[in-house]
Every structure is written in C-alpha cells, then in structure tokens.
C-alpha cells in the first residue's frame, strides 16, 4: 500500500526465495568473485555477437534463480525485466526462451530495483505468488550502443565507469524462506544539467539523494535503521558527491554504512575500470550475489539498495541534452523479527 508520497509498503512481506547471478571475466577477477553462481571466462561466451552473449547471461541467471528457488519454471507467473539495449532486446529474447508472461521495463541501471519493486508489488497485491525479476548488462553491448566500438582506441577520462558484464535474477514469492522485501521507494527524474556521458556518477548522485530522502520521509525511517545503504553505480565520483549532499541536507548518513555497488564489484585500485562499475547488472549482481548472502548469513539485518539510472540515449546527448537520472530504493531485511 502507498505510504507517504512515493513509497510502497509491502505488508504481506513478499520473500526472495531464490536468486542467482552470472558474470563475465572482469567481475570474476573482482573481490566478489566467490559470490556469483557462474563466472564466464570469456567476454563473448562463445556467442556470435555481444548481444547474444548478454542474452545468454540473463537466460542463465533466470534459470539458476528458478532452480535456487526450488520451483518449476511453470510456477513462475510473471517475469519483470529490463536492460540497457535499444528496445530492451536482451530481456525480450530471454523472455522468449523463458516462456512466461512478461512485463518489460526500462530504467537503465536502476532496472534491478525497479523490477524487484514491481515484482514485490505484484506479489503483495495477490496478483501472483511467484514473480521473477531480472536484469542484465554487457560491457561490450553498452560500449557499442552508447560509446565507441569496443576495440576503438579512445582514452577514457577518470570519471568514466566500466559497464558490468553480468545478469541477476530473483524469484519473489508470497511465502517461503528467504530475505523479505519490506518496502520500496519509486524515484522521480532528477536532472541538474550534467551533460557529460563520461561522468554519469555525478549526473546520478542528486537522483539517489532525492530518493533516499523521500524514502526516509515516507517511511519515517532513518539511516540508522539500516545496517547498510548502497547506491547502484555512482562509483568513485558520484558516491562521495551523494554522501556530501545528504550530509548537507542533515541526513545522518554516518549512522549507517553507506556504500556503492560500483565500488564493490571491482577492485577499483587494481582493475582498469576508471571510477568503478556501472550498468544494470552492477547493482543486480552485487545485491543478489553478495548482499543477500550476507543478509542470509545474519551479517546484515536490514539493507536499502538504491539503484541509480542515467536515462540518456546516444541521440539525446549528441543533441546536447542533459542526462535525466532516476533512483529506485528497495528495503530488504533478514525477515526475522
């Protein structure tokens, strides 16, 4: 049900009964390697195109998530998914293989939490008992669509980010064992006029701040109520900006641990990823691969994942438009009161 202005409170306590992550080689060389279900050693994954490789990641993550949930594919009533490709082709094609009713969404890199929030809403409303949420991204498809050919020799500035190759999927169910989705805050578009597509962290930081504050205003919670708050992919430039803005607005962020998935998925010092990770899969693989494991182990009791998205297109930035940004927050708890 609606709480405050833009938050959903899931009083039926939908449960994430199974989740899975599949990643590429760079993520497999990162600090969270052990947390992923499958690491592909090659970027092409023996597929004929980058797009096919991205699709494969999502198909595998969905399949593993259903297996980990210990249900049959036939029990999945809806699949909610999105990605970065034009016309979200990775999801539409993966949904073709999946063969379940499909809701395609686009939220750029905020898609991970957008789909989890929607899946939880469907379950909470009683419109489905098993709903799959998923997203994916591939470094090379993103480079190809948004920037230059992958092998083109252009120097990236230190503010640029490295798109995560991977996919994450989760089965949200009305009943079962697993972390509980407590509530979600749906973000507004925030655009403070940053035009540089190589500095998306700075462009997205105000959107994350807006959603985090709206979440606290709507739910009456404070940062101290969470053991960990993570943003999706603000990385080395955007994340400190978001923290500064929150502290300026008197949000006591020092009461919690405030991290960023884009800084967790890679070893930013050693791996050549400029400011850190980005892409739909960034927050998806960190949340579903790493954070939910920590929640299940009891290391974290309650977390807030604020997935951030830069809703630009190659067309819009070439026409000189600024970058509209969004963030969606989902609160997940261990479920034990």
């Amino acid at each position, binding site marked *: 049900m609606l709480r405050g202005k833009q938050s959903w409170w899931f009083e039926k306590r939908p449960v994430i009964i199974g989740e899975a992550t599949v990643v590429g080689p760079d993520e497999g060389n990162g600090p969270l390697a052990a947390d992923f279900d499958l690491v592909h050693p090659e970027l092409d994954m023996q597929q004929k195109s980058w797009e096919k490789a991205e699709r494969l990641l999502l198909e595998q993550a969905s399949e593993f998530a259903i297996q980990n949930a210990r249900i049959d594919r036939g029990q999945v009533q809806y699949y909610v998914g999105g990605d970065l490709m034009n016309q979200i082709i990775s999801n539409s094609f993966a949904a073709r293989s999946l063969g379940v009713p499909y809701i395609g969404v686009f939220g750029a890199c905020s898609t991970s939490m957008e789909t989890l929030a929607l899946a939880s809403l469907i379950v909470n409303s009683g419109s489905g008992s098993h709903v799959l949420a998923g997203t994916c991204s591939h470094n090379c498809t993103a480079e190809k669509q948004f920037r230059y050919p992958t*092998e083109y020799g252009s120097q990236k500035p230190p503010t640029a980010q490295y798109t995560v190759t991977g996919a994450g999927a989760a089965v949200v169910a009305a009943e079962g064992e697993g972390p509980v989705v407590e509530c979600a805050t749906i973000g507004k578009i925030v655009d403070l006029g940053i035009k540089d597509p190589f500095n998306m962290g700075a462009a997205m930081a*105000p959107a994350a701040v807006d959603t985090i504050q709206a979440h606290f205003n709507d739910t009456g919670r404070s940062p101290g109520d969470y053991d960990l708050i993570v943003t999706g992919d603000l990385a080395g430039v955007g994340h400190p900006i978001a923290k500064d803005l929150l502290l300026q607005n008197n949000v006591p962020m020092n009461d919690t641990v405030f991290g960023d998935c884009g800084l967790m998925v890679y070893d930013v010092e050693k791996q050549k990823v400029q400011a850190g990770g980005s892409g739909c899969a960034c927050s998806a693989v960190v949340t579903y691969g790493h954070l939910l494991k920590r929640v299940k182990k009891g290391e974290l009791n309650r977390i807030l994942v604020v997935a951030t998205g830069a809703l630009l297109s190659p067309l819009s930035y070439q026409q000189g438009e600024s970058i509209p940004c969004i963030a969606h927050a989902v609160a997940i708890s261990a479920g034990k009161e």
Partner: protein
Amino acid sequence: MATKSKGAQRFKKMSMSPKEYQSFAKTKEPPRSIFANCVKAFVVGGAICVLGQAIQELFVHLMGMSNEQASNPTVAVLILLSVILTSLGVYDKLAQWAGAGSAVPVTGFANSMCSAALEHRSEGLVLGVGGNMFKLAGAVIVYGTVAAFFVGIVHLILGTGGQ
C-alpha cells in the same frame, strides 16, 4: 487506499541550483594531468613515427625504392600493424595510456575503421561492415576534405601553393 505518512518532510530538499551543482560536481572530478598526458602522447606518437621512418628506410635500402616510392608501402605496413593490434585487442589498451599519441598517426585512423568493422560484423557484410566502417573515420574524411578545400583557397589567394 489509506495513506499513512509518518514524519513527512523531515529532510530538506536539495537547495542547489543546477548551475551551483554543476560547479560543485566539477570540483569533485579527479584531476587529469595534461602534462603527463602530453608526455605520453609525445612518446607514443613519436615512437610510431620512428617506426614508420624505420620501415621507410628498409624499403629504400633493401628494395631500392626512392623516398617517394617508399611512402605508400610504409603507410600500408603501419595500417596493417594497427589492424593486427586492433584485432588482437591490444590497440585500445595502448590508447587508454597513450591518448592522442596513438589516435593522431595513421594507425589511429586504421584502428577507427577496423574496430568499427569488427564491431558491426554481426550485422552482416553490407549493412554491418560496409555501413559502419566509416562511422568514426567518416568525420575525419569529411572535415579533412573541407579543411583541404579552404587551405587550397588560401593558397590560391596568396598565390603560394600548387604549380
């Protein structure tokens, strides 16, 4: 639907204007050393030119070509090397370090065409490779031709260039 709102608007809204935010964000960008970038570009760009010179000398001394005759095969060899390095996935990594040093010489031009051709091979030989090969290089050719046209006019006016 009932709405329950606890402690609404506890935190104040963003008070920065877009202009203020943009200059604030600018201060948060990691510094980029122009000097170090220039040195790297000079070293790598210079090295590519030295290599070109060496290849040309080989053509002159081993194959008995004149300097003028040797220039075309020299460029062809450099292009071939660039295409091989691009195909092996090395050129883009060199470019991240070298910046303009690997972009400006003819090897950079070859890399822009080869990388686009490789990238769009999955869309077929005609619309994929053929249609996209000049995606990046096309701009260089267009503005190179336009610039040559104006330089030609300047030469005509000053009576300097040509015969």
